[in-house]
């Protein structure tokens, strides 16, 4: 058992790092560092699961940590790097709807809104205020992932946004009082991601969906609208 105060501080520190990686993903322009940051984010989540395991002793958590480590820290970034090698463009500089600075302000506002909404259900779902904070950060990570999806054009960035959303769900479930079948759900979602990335590699979706669409039109596989 770890002393509660130190446990609180370690978890809080990990929260700040997770948020830091999320904010960096929103503002990054280089695709290679995007994947590295995603790998770091998953690694931090694995450490968080281990810390929670040491504190509460639920074996499920160790399992989740191991799975996250293997699939999300090693496997998926490797896959993403391989598909990046086939693409010509390695940077994503277009921001659609949101600029980097304003997306940070909006994420902060989102977090506060989610916190205030969740405070009302706090007693039933979460054990204490630290776990409430964890749940809030999980949900805001999901929202930030969605922001990444709509504000960027390149498909690999959109995939990273989706993966961030998934990390958010994992974080949220780590801190909930009950944990129904989350592991199976997550493995299914991961499989879906693998299929998506291999589709990207197979069809050669080069950078963004629009250019892919244009090529399909040129080859007569799709109609202009």
């Amino acid at each position, binding site marked *: 058992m770890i002393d509660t105060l130190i446990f609180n501080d370690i978890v*809080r520190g990990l929260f700040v790092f997770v*948020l830091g990686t999320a*904010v960096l993903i929103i*503002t990054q322009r280089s695709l290679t560092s995007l994947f590295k940051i995603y790998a770091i984010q998953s690694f931090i989540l694995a450490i968080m699961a281990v810390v929670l395991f040491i504190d509460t002793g639920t074996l499920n958590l160790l399992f989740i940590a191991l799975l996250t480590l293997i699939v999300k820290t090693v496997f998926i970034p490797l896959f993403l790097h391989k598909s990046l090698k086939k693409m010509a463009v390695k940077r994503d500089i277009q921001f659609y709807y949101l600029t*980097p*600075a304003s997306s*940070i*302000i909006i994420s902060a506002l989102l977090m506060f809104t989610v916190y205030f909404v969740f405070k009302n259900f706090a007693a039933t779902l979460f054990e204490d*205020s630290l776990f409430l904070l964890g749940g809030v950060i999980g949900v805001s990570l999901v929202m930030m992932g969605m922001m990444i999806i709509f504000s960027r054009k390149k498909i690999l960035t959109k995939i990273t946004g989706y993966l961030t959303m998934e990390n958010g769900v994992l974080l949220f479930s780590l801190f909930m009082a009950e944990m129904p079948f989350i592991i199976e759900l997550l493995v299914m979602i991961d499989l879906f991601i693998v299929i998506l990335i291999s589709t990207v590699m197979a069809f050669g979706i080069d950078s963004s969906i629009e250019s892919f669409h244009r090529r399909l039109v040129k080859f007569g596989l799709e109609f202009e609208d």
Partner: protein
Amino acid sequence: MSWNMILYIVLNTAFVLLLAPLFMSLIKKVKAMCQGRRGTPLLQTYFQLFKLFKKEIIYSDTSSFIMRISPYLNIAFLLVASIAVPIVFIPAQESGFGNIILFLYLMVCARFFMALGGLDAGSAFGGMGSSREMTIASIIEPSMLMACAAMAFILKSTDIPLMFETVLDNSVAQYPTLILVAFSLFIILIVETARVPVDNPETHLELTMVHEAMILEQTGPKLALTELSYGIKQLILMALLINIIFPWGLAVEITPIGILISIALFTLKAVILSVLIGVFESSFAKIRFFRLPDFFMIVFFLSFAIIVFELLT
């Protein structure tokens, strides 16, 4: 003003004045070694300062009294600010020298007069340097105050010597969030001392320099004073960062052995931090000027998140 305080002022200021150039050349040497060169000797900055003191002063014919007094004011403000950060020993508390807001604003003062000096000579170069310097300073100020507020919240005091004493008494394991504050303080150190990735003082092109552009018209002993003041600013910010996290060795009473151990340990820690700064500088390219606000926003967000988490749990 007790004898304790007077001794502290004399010793602290002497230490800061004597050792500031050493750390400047150490960082340059580390950067050179990262680039595969051998770099200049460690005492090079001292030689440079002596050389500058022997030269003559040249004033531009368009400059006014500002150019004559601003180097003096610059270094005077920074020396008074250095009294707020104890390096040799922690003085007995009095007269509010160590107030953190006073410390920050003395540095703002020094920068104000330097920026005025940049506009004085009537060249576009100096004007551009002053303009960009004041812009970067305004954007980093909220992040700096967030870091200070985080320190004040965690350590429950706004007096810097008192903060050091609290961490010394209670060991940093009690305040792990301070390590996160240290990250923000590190970035603020990089910004305030005009290092890559914010500014590149090595080149002399208007696209890549901000700080150096302001002091382009200074000559001779005045330039020596200005260079020395950069070193002092760097040293006091490094001291703030180091002593908030690892203040062990800092003496609380005045004993010769205690003070010597203090100085030796601090020099060791500062050497390690300088190596870190040099390696950090060599790993990044300079960020485009108008991308800097995004970068600072990230730092601000982190400091803000630290405070908010501290409050919400």
